[in-house]
């Protein structure tokens, strides 16, 4: 009783039950008051990938445990996303034929998915404009095909 333990989220969720107080959950530091003020000051400078690559998803999971800070936490996560949105949109749709690793480094995993979607839109349009879209290329599925082709077997 009274021991502090680090448990994986799935186990904590399984053990957590409103009726029997087997355990109570302490919020990870990133979601605590002190970090929340950092996010509300300027969310753009924070390195979300370093703080936890699944900031949004994990934060939403933390809401499963009834803590008094839930409402503020949910609000902070949403506001963080909103204030970072513009930068993700602009960087993903302007970086054409560039090394994007520096742009992506500070993004959370969900944001990276978004970044990829933006890049795809840009690349599609640019390749169409330069007249490369009409050239037929091998599908990405075929390129990753590991099996040997018939022609190679015969040789």
């Amino acid at each position, binding site marked *: 009783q009274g021991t502090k333990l680090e448990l994986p989220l799935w186990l904590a969720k399984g053990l957590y039950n409103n009726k029997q107080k087997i355990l109570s959950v302490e919020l990870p530091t990133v979601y605590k008051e002190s970090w929340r003020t950092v996010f509300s000051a300027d969310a753009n400078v924070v390195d979300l990938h370093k703080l936890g690559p699944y900031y*949004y998803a994990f934060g*939403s999971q933390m809401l*499963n445990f009834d803590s008094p800070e839930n409402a503020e936490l949910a609000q902070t996560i949403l506001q963080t996303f909103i204030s970072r949105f*513009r930068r993700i949109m602009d960087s993903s*749709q302007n970086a054409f034929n560039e090394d994007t690793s520096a742009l992506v480094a500070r993004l959370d995993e969900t944001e990276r998915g978004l970044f990829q979607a933006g890049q795809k839109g840009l690349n599609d349009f640019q390749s169409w404009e330069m007249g490369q879209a009409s050239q037929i290329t091998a599908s990405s599925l075929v390129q990753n095909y590991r099996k040997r082709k018939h022609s190679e077997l015969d040789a």
Partner: protein
Amino acid sequence: MEASEVEFLAEQEPVTIIPNFSLDRIYLIGGDLGPFNPGLPVQVPLWLAINLKQRQKCRLIPPEWMDVEKLEQIREQERNEATFTPMPSPYYMEFTKLLLNYAADNIPKADEIRTLVKDTWDTRIAKLRLSADSFVRQQEAHARLDNLTLMEINTTGPFLTQALDHMYKLRTNLQPGGSAQSQDF
């Protein structure tokens, strides 16, 4: 959708050509075309016009709006107004690209037209981004964007819908009882 699919749709649009051969009316699934007489202007879909042009069987008449003065006017209007202005053609970008690539010799001042259309496009994309940002910032539930063309929607569409999906999930967290749903995040 891909850009080339949008281009395919644009190729259904009619343009006027002046053929230099004669041919009877031809019957196609999409409608009848012709008859073609040398020197007489006739309306055909863009795909046929480009095909004939590549075989040097016709002269292309550029659409009315593809004119330096008109395009300058459109560009200025687009820059001055905060909302999207109506475009002369729903496929203006595709038209410019196809016509200037394959029939540049039939279009006066082709280079200027290319720059003007590109400028207009850039202005519109910047506007689109600005409005997407304010849409997200104010957490609106719906917005109305008039006069956008398919190609423009196509470039930001997947990104924007994915971002809004994501924001919707974060917003359901705000409601009490919404936490039960967040399990299938």
